[in-house]
């Protein structure tokens, strides 16, 4: 939570509706996202109970397991789910182009986007992937061919979803709270229906009133994957595993899932009209490339993702996750003055009017021989700047032009420009309104990590090559 978000929370209570936290949409929204609302049987780790899934809001697929404790029925459910989800993904993986970069690489023309209601839905997607990707399609515990493929795709999507810049698998509650601030606490925002109630209250109700209504589990059943204990007790228990009650069970679960299904599409409708942030397309491009890479891996007969990362792979992944996070945060601020305002409130960015520019200033850097061009720019700002001299700064207006803070005296900050001064570049002009921030969309450094073969003994030495075993394939799913 940030200062500006706290301010917006108070404003949301004042106005009786959620406040915009951004001026643009920072996340890619597919033309036809696949909405996936899964439910699991209470008390079980990954026993699917039902799901509503599809990319057509008028015609959702309802998948139901009549006896979730029966292994065969679970795999039948997964096979049905694979029909929907793998078919959807394959619409994108078949269309590939080469990039026009210096080192060309494959990327898909577009990528799938799966939307689930909440982070628990993302975690459940991971478990569904984990419980199916090692299965064999022949032999004693054979499953339908698309089941392990579904497992591998779900695992891939979940792995990607941990990157801040990926948009192929997203939790709707997170997506909404990134773009709006409601007048309720973060704990309450975790419920999709109440968050929507604040963002788009029905006519004549304040957000608070609508949210209280949306808390009623009879009116808005939980968005899953956990079901309402009252529903389990009163409705589900008599129907589960019973004979000749399939139609009743389907109807009961349809009623539980439909309100969330509608909420999901209402949320899509709310996000759609927001203009897209400038760096969104570049981030989606990385998803398209990752998709093509994984498709290539599958085509070339690559193994399913292992149970655990090796030490080097884990360290490398962590470094990439951190870099993606940092770059995403910086890009968001550079694309959106309202996000930047948050950094200004924290004192790590400032905006103001340029009052003087010393364009021809040349200095001899310490240790250097020649005098080099180092212009000075003075900015008058009303912001309270909490940056120490020497801090490297960038401006969204000229993100390639490196600068550092020389001094702050009173309301005047003086910057020295250090790079990006070549031909075709412009300097800030006197009178220009400009913003500088201690943020860098490309400033992450990749730590040098050893090759797998050189993993130090402190980290277990070089890992054994991963080979899936029959044990993986036959693991009991009980």
């Amino acid at each position, binding site marked *: *939570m*940030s*200062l*500006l978000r*706290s*301010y*917006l*929370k*108070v*404003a949301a*209570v*004042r106005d009786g509706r959620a406040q*915009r936290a951004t*001026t643009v949409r920072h996340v890619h929204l597919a033309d036809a996202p696949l909405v996936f609302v899964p439910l699991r*049987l*209470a*008390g*079980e*780790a*990954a026993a699917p109970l039902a799901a509503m899934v599809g990319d057509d809001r008028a015609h959702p697929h309802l998948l139901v397991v009549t006896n979730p404790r029966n292994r065969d029925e679970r795999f039948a459910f997964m096979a049905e789910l694979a029909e929907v989800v793998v078919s959807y993904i394959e619409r994108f993986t078949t269309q590939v182009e080469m990039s026009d970069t210096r080192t060309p690489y494959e990327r898909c023309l577009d990528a799938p986007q799966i939307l689930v209601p909440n982070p628990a839905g993302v*975690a459940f997607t991971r*478990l569904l992937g*984990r*419980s199916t990707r090692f299965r064999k399609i022949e032999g004693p515990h054979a499953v339908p061919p698309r089941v392990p493929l579904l497992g591998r795709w779900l695992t891939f999507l979940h792995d990607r979803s941990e990157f801040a810049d990926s948009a192929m698998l997203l939790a709707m509650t997170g997506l909404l709270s990134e773009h709006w601030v409601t*007048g*309720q*606490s*973060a*704990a*309450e925002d975790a419920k999709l229906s109440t968050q929507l109630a604040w963002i788009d209250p029905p006519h004549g109700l304040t957000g*608070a009133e609508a949210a209280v209504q949306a808390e*009623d*589990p009879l009116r808005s059943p939980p968005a899953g994957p956990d*079901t309402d*204990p*009252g529903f*389990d*007790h009163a409705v*589900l*228990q008599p129907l*589960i595993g019973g004979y000749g009650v399939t139609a009743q069970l389907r109807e009961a679960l349809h009623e539980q899932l439909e309100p969330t299904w509608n909420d999901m599409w209402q949320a899509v409708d709310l996000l759609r009209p927001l203009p897209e942030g400038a760096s969104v397309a570049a981030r989606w491009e990385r998803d398209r490339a990752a998709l093509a890479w994984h498709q290539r891996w599958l085509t070339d007969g690559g193994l399913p993702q292992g*149970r*655990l990362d090796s030490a080097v792979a884990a360290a490398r992944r962590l470094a990439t996750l951190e870099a993606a996070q940092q770059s995403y945060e910086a890009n968001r601020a550079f694309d959106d*003055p*309202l996000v*930047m*305002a948050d950094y*200004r*409130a924290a004192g790590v960015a400032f*905006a103001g009017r340029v009052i003087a520019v010393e364009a021809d200033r040349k200095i001899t850097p310490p240790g250097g021989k020649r005098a080099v061009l180092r212009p000075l720019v003075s900015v008058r700002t*009303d*912001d*309270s700047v909490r940056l120490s001299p020497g801090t490297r700064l960038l401006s969204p207006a000229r993100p390639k032009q490196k600068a550092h803070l020389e001094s702050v005296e009173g309301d005047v900050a003086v910057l020295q420009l250090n790079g990006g001064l070549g031909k075709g570049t412009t300097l800030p002009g006197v009178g220009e309104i400009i913003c500088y921030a201690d943020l860098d969309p490309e400033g992450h450094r990749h730590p040098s990590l050893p090759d797998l073969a050189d993993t130090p003994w402190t980290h277990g030495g070089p890992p054994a090559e991963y080979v899936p075993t029959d044990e993986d394939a036959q*693991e*009991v*799913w*009980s």
Partner: protein
Amino acid sequence: MSGLDTWRGPNRLDALRGPSKPVDHNARSIAALAANPACQRRAILDAAGIDKGSTIQHLGYPHQFGQSPFALARQEQFKAIVKAHGGAHILRLLRELLHLSVEEAGYHNVEDAADDNGRAVRHRHTRTVLRSAAEQPEHAATLFDDPLLKLNVAGYDVYLEPDVIAFQVGRQFHVVAIKTFAVVDGQADTPKVSAAAREAAVYVHALRELFSSLGLDPARVAHDVVLICPKDFMNFPTAALVDVRHPLEVLRRQLERLSRIDDILDELPPGLSLDLRMEGKTPTRPAAELAAAVSALEARYAPECLAVCEMAYFCRAEARACGSLEALGRTVRDDLGGLESIDTAIHLISGDPVCSPEQDAIATRLQYLRRLHDEAVA
């Protein structure tokens, strides 16, 4: 605590509750107390053994803490698997985790020996059995199933049933907690592990108290708890040691605070009653009257309460009605420099004059945030 206090406390608490039977504390409710130590309402309701579920329903709010019958069935099933054949799985896991040698393992079901003679008898039996085990090394490495521990919470004796207590060669007792969340590829859901650790800490604390009262060294109860969970997607149990020193310390501090419950009682209006006036299974007390009585107990509502306390929705409505800033989350309150009410914040945002000099700083900050916001959306 003096003899007089222990006499005085329960009597006043009984008066507060009325004729209904007190609801027992359990490890979960004691752990929840530690989560919000400043809440006098919860402290009193729990100490008096008031049925918070019935109370909140009578006040017109849903009772949010029902458990799914599927989850309950799963718990029973998994516990039965773990304890089957004289705790064969537990012994296997303890051998792996604590390097227990096979021949020294025994199994003792405390519940069997105690018949149906009530909890006091079962607790006395637990004491006897544990003392003899602690004093006689030849009884080493015995599993004690279904023991009954006792803890003094605010002058009340609270009975607690840990799943199992193991006693091992290194003269250390370990509490065993059996949970049904899965450990998939060596990883479990962090919030669930923390909740299990907080509950297990209550058992460790109670067992240490028991040891002290027997004149034994409480340090012989290990702060490492054995957590048994299903492995991957199977019914096959796996185990891990969980260090509960931190939740144990939090719990100890909170229980110390609770002994001042008499001070809270002193401040309550005389004749205050939280009785639902049950006639059979129907409460007959007017809800408005009950609401007024509950409101006399000072609550400390924060959004975290929603996950742990039955009363949370009542307290939230109360907090919202008086415009509490904390109801929006503790960070919001901290960010806004300790303002208590949302209305004050709204006034300060709109530039109304400040009422007290302490508000100068926060007024300036809110005006600053407003300027930054308006500039950005302009």
